[in-house]
């Protein structure tokens, strides 16, 4: 399907996820879950996987998925982002499942994928990234000859409650990706208090932890890089969904909040701020879905498309979250109002898998450093024409 063309089935998928979120996610659920341990509802997560089938939309049918495209997965993620859905989306759906799909067939892949897709188990991706890219030279975990892992990975999103951990480690033959049972021996997890209470993290220490190889040295780099690129695109789409929710909220408030005897949205100072937020969300949506399409049909360099999406969407969501609080005024600074939940998600999403600045830097490397001077424009020198 041509880029940016959505099918009727995709529109139905969007409505179904939106309906599910209206019943099971949203502010009230988030407030309840962010105070609990684990900070998500295993029953709702299981229904997202088994009933709604939105955790593995782009997973082949033979592996227990829906056999759709990454565009389908993105649509579901956008809606879940709008509703601030709580659960290990980042660890499981953004990174672990794409890594497993990219890995060659094997018993570990066959065992793990269906359970993650069905929402029976969750996963975390214990691979430190360097601004959304994989750096095999800097791995903090080593694998012994017998495949036992030793080392520590800091700040693993969704790592505290995950059942399966995907861990990159340097072994005797090189860098490989391993699967570790989080409940097994030699795994020590320390939950960390996070700015965004709905997106938990843990530091994980491995001490001779039994591990099974998932992607060997011949393909680990490709598999992990692919997972980070898909994760970057899906994280960008989540930001688009959440930012749109905030823009709708801010616009609705500006239409009804009366000051000086008139709706505050009639003041140009606010109207123009909201117009700029609209431009930002439209740019973010275009960039995020472009990355999704690039990863679907290979129509663009996935590294460049993912960095464009991350740079644009992270900047857009943080700006929109910031400005939404400003439009709301005092109420927007209270714990009671939902704005801060999204603002904290915005700060978190912007930092995960590389900041806007880091991705901008990568875009510069890709498009500026080898640019051609062939069509350089004329510069006047002071000599009369």
């Amino acid at each position, binding site marked *: 399907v*041509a*880029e*940016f*063309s959505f099918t009727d089935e995709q529109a139905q998928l969007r409505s179904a996820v939106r309906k599910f979120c209206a019943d099971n996610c949203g502010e009230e659920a988030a407030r309840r879950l962010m105070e609990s341990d684990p900070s998500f509802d295993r029953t709702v997560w299981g229904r997202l996987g088994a009933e709604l089938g939105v955790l593995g939309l782009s997973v082949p049918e033979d592996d227990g998925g829906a056999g759709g495209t990454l565009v389908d997965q993105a649509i579901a993620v956008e809606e879940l982002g709008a509703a601030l859905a709580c659960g290990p989306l980042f660890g499981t759906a953004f990174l672990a499942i794409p890594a497993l799909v990219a890995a060659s067939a094997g018993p570990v892949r066959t065992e793990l994928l269906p359970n993650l897709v069905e929402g029976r188990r969750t996963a975390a991706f214990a691979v430190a990234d360097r601004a959304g890219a994989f750096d095999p030279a800097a791995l903090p975990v080593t694998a012994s000859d017998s495949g036992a892992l030793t080392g520590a990975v800091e700040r693993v999103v969704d790592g505290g409650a995950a059942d399966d951990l995907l861990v990159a480690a340097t072994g005797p033959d090189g860098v490989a990706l391993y699967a570790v049972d989080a409940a097994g021996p030699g795994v020590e997890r320390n939950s960390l208090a996070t700015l965004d209470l709905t997106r938990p993290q843990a530091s994980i220490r491995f001490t001779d932890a039994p591990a099974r190889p998932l992607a060997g040295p011949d393909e680990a780099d490709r598999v992990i890089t692919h997972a980070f690129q898909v994760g970057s695109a899906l994280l960008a789409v989540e930001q688009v969904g959440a930012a749109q929710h905030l823009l709708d909220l801010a*616009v609705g408030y*500006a*239409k009804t909040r009366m000051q000086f005897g*008139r*709706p505050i*949205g*009639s*003041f*140009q100072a606010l*109207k*123009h701020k*909201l*117009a*700029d937020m*609209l*431009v930002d969300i*439209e*740019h*973010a*949506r*275009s*960039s995020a*879905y*472009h990355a999704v399409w690039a990863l679907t049909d290979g129509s663009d360099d996935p590294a460049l498309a993912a960095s*464009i999406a991350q*740079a*644009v969407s992270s900047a857009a969501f943080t700006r929109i979250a910031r400005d939404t609080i400003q439009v709301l005024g005092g109420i927007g600074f209270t714990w009671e109002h939902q704005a801060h939940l999204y603002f904290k998600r915005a700060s978190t999403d912007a930092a995960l898998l590389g900041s806007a600045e880091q991705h*901008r*830097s990568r*875009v*510069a490397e890709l*498009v*500026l450093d080898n*640019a*051609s*001077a*062939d*069509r*350089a*424009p*004329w*510069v*006047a*020198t*002071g*000599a*009369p*024409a």
Partner: protein
Amino acid sequence: MCTVADSDRVAELARQVVAEHDPRNVPIPDYLGACYDAGLSWVHFPEGQGGLGVSRGLQAVADRILQGAGGPVPLGLNPMGYGMAAPTIREHAQDDDLKRSWLRPLATTEDLWCQLFSEPGAGSDLAGLATSAVRDGDDWVINGQKVWTSLAHRARWGLLLARTNPDLPKHKGLTYFVIDMHGPGVETRPLRQLTGQAEFNEVYFTDARIPDAHRLGAIGNGWGVAMTTLMNERSALGGSGSRRGAGTISDAVSLWAARPDLHTPVLRDRLTQLWLRSEAQRLTSERSRAAAGVGGPGPEASIGKMVGAELNQHIYEWCMDLLGAEGILYHGYAKKMDPDSEGDWRGPIQQRFLRSRANTIEGGTSEVMRNILGERVLGLPGDLRADTMAWKEIPRG
């Protein structure tokens, strides 16, 4: 509907025109006349008026063949004619004979057109304009002044918005006309702009006359008719190339590549931000094209116009910052009295930098664009108005 049969027919007709009138050998008006007679000037217009009554999306099929064979881009030769006058005439002229008599010479570019909307006292507040049209028998008598009129000195016809009833609220007292730019009482003077060029004109009307038959739309409905024209203008201004890195950003990127001696990390990051915004806007245009299919221009074109205008300014500001002391030289302000509408954009970086100041003013200021986005797209309430009384009682100055 856009059918395969229609598409084949358009392509076949275009190939026939090219075969019978090789654009490399026949004069441009003859070639464009042949296009008009074949119904290929604007394929969605009715037959006999330069169209075929088929889907607007098929124009691209015709243009690919007609321009691919070496034919001109008519929008560049008669921009107000093709971009604004033709759709307005088609929708609002009083009868088919009149439509045909205007459209064919417009299409051939023998008759150029101009747009007479803005006035010294009515820019963003276009509906407040003061040029008057007073009925006198079968004619209207026009008095007043227009400004920022491209091509007025070469145009045969002008699209004129004038006040026919000062006793009504401002939007309701306007009527839309076509005026003969060669008629008595019409005086055109070039208007020199800050680049030194004279790309635009001032036009003065002193008892100029227009037959009532040259009125477009009903008396008092000028504002509604003008909206047809303006939406087409903003759509034309907001449209951008679909190739990554094309457009204004290519000036900055190739200048960056050409001048490694001037590189700094700060300039590199600023350029990357500009590149990203250009790319995000390009992708947004692609996405709205995919969503709109074959429809006409909508309010999302206002995003493209606004972003494109501000990007142009920021990109040339960046170029000047890169050049530093070299940038404050010029090639002279030689006055050109035969305006070339694209002269500034073909000039050196410094001239483009100066010209870009107009981008956020012409065709709707960025402030008005943000009002449109806020009110028409987001549905925010309008500002409190101080101009709802009869036009003649509105404070002016």
